[in-house]
């Protein structure tokens, strides 16, 4: 029989991770199953839902770094290039994300300016900063504030979607203002880069494994 059958553990007394107990939880359905060694099973599947089982997300550090750096590079054209061109009564005006924010401030709707600024500028930048901080803290095997860092990760994962607001707003305006020389809105390349930043940062948050934060704690003990 396997080693697990012989091991008796009083979990109420001892904080035990799945890793130490030699089991792995399915990411998708949550079922625990016995961990197979690499040679036994190269690509184990969850016996219940059939999803790929990973002890930790594969190459989490390298993947997340790669995606963070890619998003960082795209963040510049996303903010510098115009997201849309507005033609109004024969005059064409290019709008970047920031000039859209200033437009709302000058027209008096400061609350909308705030929403756009936070969703389009602050959230992507904050996501990149937070993910970099988490990656560095894991690489330095930090054991400080693991709860707060895990919470920070969960927030990062949850807020990324709101950055899509500007993309949707551009789509609606492109569709509605389509009256030739009088009033026309065209999407600009900035919107493409911006969409890429949102998608890539979402993948980056997804590829980070928060359990790495806690693995450092286990090894210190």
């Amino acid at each position: 029989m396997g080693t697990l059958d012989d091991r008796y553990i009083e979990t109420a007394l001892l904080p035990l991770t799945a890793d130490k107990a030699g089991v792995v939880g399915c990411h998708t359905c949550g079922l625990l199953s016995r961990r197979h060694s690499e040679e036994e099973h190269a690509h184990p599947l969850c016996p219940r839902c059939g999803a790929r089982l990973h002890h930790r997300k594969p190459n989490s550090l390298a993947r997340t770094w790669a995606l963070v750096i890619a998003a960082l590079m795209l963040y510049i054209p996303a903010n510098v290039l115009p997201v849309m061109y507005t033609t109004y009564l024969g005059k064409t005006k290019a709008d970047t994300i920031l000039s859209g924010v200033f437009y709302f401030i000058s027209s008096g709707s400061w609350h909308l300016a705030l929403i756009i600024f936070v969703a389009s500028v602050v959230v992507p930048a904050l996501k990149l900063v937070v993910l970099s901080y988490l990656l560095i803290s894991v690489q330095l095997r930090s054991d400080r504030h693991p709860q707060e860092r895990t919470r920070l990760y969960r927030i990062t994962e949850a807020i990324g979607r709101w950055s899509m607001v500007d993309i949707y707003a551009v789509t609606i305006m492109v569709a509605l203002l389509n009256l030739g020389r009088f009033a026309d809105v065209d999407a600009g390349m900035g919107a493409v880069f911006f969409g890429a930043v949102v998608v890539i940062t979402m993948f980056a948050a997804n590829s980070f494994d928060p359990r790495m934060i806690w693995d450092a704690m286990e090894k210190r003990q």
Partner: protein
Amino acid sequence: MTRPPVRVMDLDTYIACHDCDLLHRRQPLATVGVATCSRCGAVLYRNRRNSLDRTLAMAVCGVILFFIANLFPFLTLSFEGQVQETTLVTGIMELYRQGMASLALLVLATGVVFPLVELTGLIYLLLPLKFDRTPWGIAGVFRVVRLLQPWGMTEVFLLGILVSIVKLASMATVIPGAALFAFLALIFVVAATAASLNPDIVWERLTIDT
């Protein structure tokens, strides 16, 4: 030792926290309850009142609203006597026509396809389960539904619509259409669908290969 020791092999009585890997023993919850990780606070599992019935009802309602939201005009714009109607799909087609295929695809996927797949997928799974039948491909379909969940962004879309209305209102008259109200209702229904679903009611129907 006063209590008999627990055997780790009883794997389905345990759950590992997906955020910090700590093992917990599954404990029965109240009808409406959430079990959180004692170390990092992540939600481990939850119990919802009449999860199957409520989720199914919400998903059916969601699909109906979804079709109203996509088939009827969203916003009508009148400008110097010219009137223009938009549905969600015309915006996407206009983006595609302007050569922004990748952007059109992103909006189509996150705003239209993923939310629809999520709702219809849930109906496909929960309706047979309601009558104690197991739908074909249950594991694969539910895996796709769970995978797509963070990528359906109806609520973000609504905020985008509100932003564009404010921006356009300075140039022309914007008249909200029936679809806009359906969309507004859809946001709440999609949120209620997600909140009433206890994923374990589907997973527990699956057999475990040994």
